[in-house]
């Protein structure tokens, strides 16, 4: 799959849980001048990057694994579903909002703040041995693609 699907069908792909695979997946899903306008593309790519990198770093703890990514392009949004077989989130819940966007010089901790600022409908559940995270990104279709 290169670029986002033009139609509203469901697309699913699997990637390895390492930073290089995340980068390759993002470059493939969000090529320049795709169906999304520039702002929407940048926001979608950023949020998905943060989510996938969290899985690599925290759920799998850098030890590797598989990530199951589904996305669906709707009217004005993309819905994402990201599943992994890594460790459950602490307390089986989304991170506390207090950790977000602290403005401190901490090297980490910005990721969830960006996700919460840019995504809607964020929900996490532990399903058996899987973490399942769903979220939506509001998007505009590029005038070139319309």
């Amino acid at each position, binding site marked *: 799959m290169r670029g986002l699907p033009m139609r509203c069908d469901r697309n699913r792909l699997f990637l390895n849980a390492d*930073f*290089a695979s*995340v*980068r390759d997946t*993002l470059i493939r899903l969000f090529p320049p001048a795709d169906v999304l306008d*520039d*702002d929407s593309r*940048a*926001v979608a*790519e*950023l949020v998905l*990057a*943060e989510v996938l*990198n969290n899985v*690599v*770093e925290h759920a799998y703890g850098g030890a590797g694994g598989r990530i199951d990514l589904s996305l669906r392009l709707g009217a004005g949004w993309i819905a994402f579903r990201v599943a992994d077989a890594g460790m459950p989130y602490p307390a089986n819940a989304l991170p506390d909002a207090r950790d977000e*966007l602290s*403005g401190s*010089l*901490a*090297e*980490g*901790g*910005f*990721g969830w*703040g*960006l996700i919460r*600022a*840019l995504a809607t409908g964020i929900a996490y559940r532990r399903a058996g041995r899987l973490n399942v995270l769903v979220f939506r990104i509001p998007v505009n279709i590029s005038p070139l693609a319309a």
Partner: protein
Amino acid sequence: MDFACEHRGAVTVLRACGSRIDAAGAIQFKDRMRAACSGAAQRVVLDLSAVEFLDSSGLGAIVAVRRLLGEAQVLELAALTPPVARVFRLTRMDTVFVIHARAADAV
């Protein structure tokens, strides 16, 4: 990530030559930038005009370089593209760094 280094009087401009500062490249970015800063002037301006993608790990790397320079040098930024500017704005790091519209404005 390579840097094009240019000394302009009391300022060293380091232009990031890659288009992404992300989790896959954050450690290398930090190491190379720190090396590039070792022979630099007291003011270092990081020109990000070529960078179209920055994630929180890349941001963390830039913040780490700023801290590594300590008191001896100051790190400023220039020419943020819209996607990069968004990350700085949402994390409020735009209030921590001096940010110039263009590298030439910093000289």
